[in-house]
């Protein structure tokens, strides 16, 4: 290595050379084209089918656009029942989860107690089972307790899914805030409750709202637990999708329902940046 090479610009350029090497062989462009086809292709099909009157092969776009199937879709009694029910159910589960988990996450973040770390890690158990096997195991108990086909049964099985996310994200948030502000407020005589409401809460609000939104969306789309515990009497929107997909007489029904069901998920896109920057998305997986 000649002395001339060891300059700051050399350090900078080595990093770039790695990137440049990858770009030179067109990796990025190939990845972009393949991903665009594979990721966006399927969504393209669904969205266009939702607005198609007729779509004959081999046309790349619908032969005739139109909205007449929208009326038919929402005139279906099963959809009229399931859609509002799913929204209410997901809200109830999210609220219950918040009431159960948020105080616990505050304790995990702020109070020192024996076994804190082990108890926090124990929530990883919700991810450490093959999901559907666990559901069957729960369903067998519910079967004996006559909870199959009941709303409380569905709420309970869906709550399991929310625990890890609703504890880990808020715990990280409560741990992450700067405590000097709280101490300053206490020093000038503010009551602990007032400090919590006026100082602590606003600081953790972005993380808390992200956790609530993620929980709501995940629960809204949760189909497997609701399927095995809810049927035959409790039918949520995603569970209804199974039958719409399997008895696909009219393609548009499934496409329109998919399109409408997808909207809550797009809410997440709005806060995607915040979720990614805070590392919250992976926290939901226990990473």
């Amino acid at each position, binding site marked *: 290595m000649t002395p001339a090479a060891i300059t700051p610009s050399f350090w900078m350029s080595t990093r770039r050379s790695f990137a440049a090497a990858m770009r030179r062989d067109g990796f990025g462009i190939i990845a972009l084209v393949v991903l665009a086809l594979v990721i966006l292709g399927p969504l393209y099909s669904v969205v266009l089918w939702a607005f198609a009157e007729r779509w004959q*092969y081999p046309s790349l776009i619908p032969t005739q656009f139109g909205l007449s199937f929208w009326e038919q879709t929402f005139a279906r009694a099963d959809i009229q029942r399931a859609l509002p029910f799913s929204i209410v159910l997901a809200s109830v589960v999210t609220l219950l989860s918040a009431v159960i988990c948020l105080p616990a996450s505050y*304790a995990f973040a702020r109070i020192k*107690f024996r076994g804190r770390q082990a108890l926090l890690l124990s929530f990883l158990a919700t991810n450490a089972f093959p999901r559907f096997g666990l559901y069957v195991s729960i369903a067998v108990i519910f079967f004996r307790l006559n909870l199959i086909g009941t709303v409380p049964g569905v709420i309970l099985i869906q709550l399991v899914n929310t625990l890890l996310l609703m504890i880990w994200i808020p715990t990280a948030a409560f741990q992450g805030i700067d405590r000097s502000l709280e101490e300053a407020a206490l020093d000038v005589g503010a009551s602990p409750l007032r400090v919590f409401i006026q100082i602590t809460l606003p600081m953790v609000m972005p993380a808390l709202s992200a956790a609530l939104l993620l929980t709501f969306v995940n629960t809204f789309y949760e189909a497997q637990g609701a399927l095995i515990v809810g049927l035959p009497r409790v039918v949520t929107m995603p569970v209804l999708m199974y039958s719409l*997909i399997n008895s696909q007489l009219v393609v548009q029904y499934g496409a329109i329902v998919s399109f409408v069901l997808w909207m809550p998920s797009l809410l997440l896109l709005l806060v995607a940046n915040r979720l990614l920057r805070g590392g919250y998305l992976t926290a939901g997986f226990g990473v």
Partner: protein
Amino acid sequence: MTTLARTSTRQRQWRGAILAYLLVAPPLLLMVLLIFIPATQSIARTLTISVDGQPGFSFSRYAAFFSDPISVNNLLFTFQVTLLTLAVIFIVCFPLSLYLRFSTGRIASAVQILALFPLFVPGIILCYALIRFLGTRGTLDTLLSLVGITGYRTPYLKPEAIVIGLVWESIPFTVLVLTAGLRQVSDTLIESARDVGAGDWTIFRRIILPLIVRPALIVFSLNFLGIFGSYTIPYLLGPAAPQMMGVFMQQTFGQYRRPDDAETQAVITFLICAFVGFLYVRTVASQRLTREEE
């Protein structure tokens, strides 16, 4: 005075600890009731048999499972799909993550957006979209015929479609975790290695690989559990036979109304996944502990 102050702090600590236990009790209780009790009860029940009204220990439920060719076939099929899917996930996501870690610019950020996009597509909608995309006379078929390729054979209702669906769903999480792991590999480290004459391959093998063992283990274990315990994608995209264990269990429980057999199938998936589940918890725990020490 000092003794008095000390007792009062200790009392306050005690009170704090009791409050903490009260606060963490509800979610813990829920987890015990809905995970530990069902799982241990299932394991215990599948090992007991009623002899003249008396419970006795027996492997007979497992013997029945393993002597039934359909059950064994479904289990083997689940293994095959899981391993194949994991292989494809790593082949696709590892180069993508390396690229995203070491590249900047517009193309890289567009690739990142696309790779993360499946996070915002729920599984059930993905299934419907893939049917419309991959099915006979679907969008892919149309695209191929436009460029003159005919004779498209759809993977829909074949094992390949399950693999495609599961890979599609796993890309964002895998890329997120692997890229985050690769960010721990500092630029200075790579530059100094290059300085002493290390080539790209040596840098990859000696620096990058050891540092991403942990993220790779997390990705491996969570994807393994997710695929082994999947239901929606294999049910909607896969063949009627052989079935993956999730589909098999649902059929046994929901359609044939044989909860005992479904339970045996569930416990078999628990036992197979136990090691992977343990690996996941251990890896995440050690990662957190190292992070807290720093």
